[in-house]
């Protein structure tokens, strides 16, 4: 993880998606107009968040298997970084919704689901701070995390699909992938997604390493 090449790759991919995302050709759609370009910036935030929460769950499971404290620290830092991307996703989504749907927060299952999911992960951090004893904190929060992850996926990706939703990809709405995302968009979109996921992983690894140093200092 300390190799530098993937960090440079991440920077180049995101920089490339900024250039190509603003200058490249996009489909001409009513209402959306040029805001379709938000696909390159708003959507990767959420993908990165889900990826980081997935990393967190994996490390929580690893912690429960091995009782290695470092795995617990990794799980927390992944959630910490994930919440940063979640906030970016929510804010950019609200800006976009205000222009295209006429309201920053229409009462939409996808949006409410994302709000609940956000609160769930904030509760994870609150739970951690509420528990004094180290081992207990690590164990309880790891179990909470394992339950929170599938619920987050259901709230964000399954429940909105079962009802009406304004958000693309939900409730009879086509995804950008089906209709609107033509082959000009796709490569730029995937570049942006992978680039941002790598950036997220990078920030997580930085936080984790700081945490390790901090931890070592405190334990002596």
């Amino acid at each position, binding site marked *: 993880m*300390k190799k*530098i090449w993937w960090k440079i790759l991440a920077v180049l991919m995101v920089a490339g998606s900024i250039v190509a995302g603003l200058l490249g050709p996009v489909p001409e759609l009513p209402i959306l107009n040029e805001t379709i370009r938000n696909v390159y910036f708003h959507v990767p935030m959420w993908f990165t968040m889900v990826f980081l929460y997935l990393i967190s769950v994996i490390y929580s499971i690893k912690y429960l298997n091995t009782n290695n404290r470092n795995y617990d620290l990794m799980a927390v830092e992944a959630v910490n970084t994930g919440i940063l991307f979640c906030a970016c996703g929510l804010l950019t989504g609200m800006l976009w919704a205000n222009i295209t749907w006429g309201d920053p927060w229409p009462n939409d299952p996808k949006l409410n689901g994302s709000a609940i999911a956000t609160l769930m992960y904030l509760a994870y951090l609150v739970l951690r701070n509420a528990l004094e004893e180290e081992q207990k904190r690590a164990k309880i929060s790891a179990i909470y995390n394992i339950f929170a992850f599938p619920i987050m996926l259901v709230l964000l990706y399954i429940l909105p699909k079962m009802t009406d939703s304004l958000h693309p990809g939900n409730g009879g709405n086509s995804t950008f992938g089906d209709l609107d995302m033509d082959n000009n968009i796709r490569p730029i979109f995937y570049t942006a997604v992978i680039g941002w996921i790598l950036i997220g992983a990078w920030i997580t690894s930085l936080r984790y390493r700081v945490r390790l140093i901090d931890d070592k200092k405190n334990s002596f």
Partner: protein
Amino acid sequence: MKKYISAFLIFLMSMGELFAQGKIEMADGLRADGKIYVVVLVMLVIFSAIAVYLFAIDRKITKLEKNK
């Protein structure tokens, strides 16, 4: 590390050149007239500042780890 940063800067500068050429070719002009290139450069500046910042933090942490 320095090598990579300078490589990235050269990449950025060559991107600038690309825009300049693109402007001439994009004679249909809608976006050129809209001055979107300015926005592209502004976003690139912001993002590269964040990237340089991350690299700097990364190096600092590596140094701290070696002091152990």
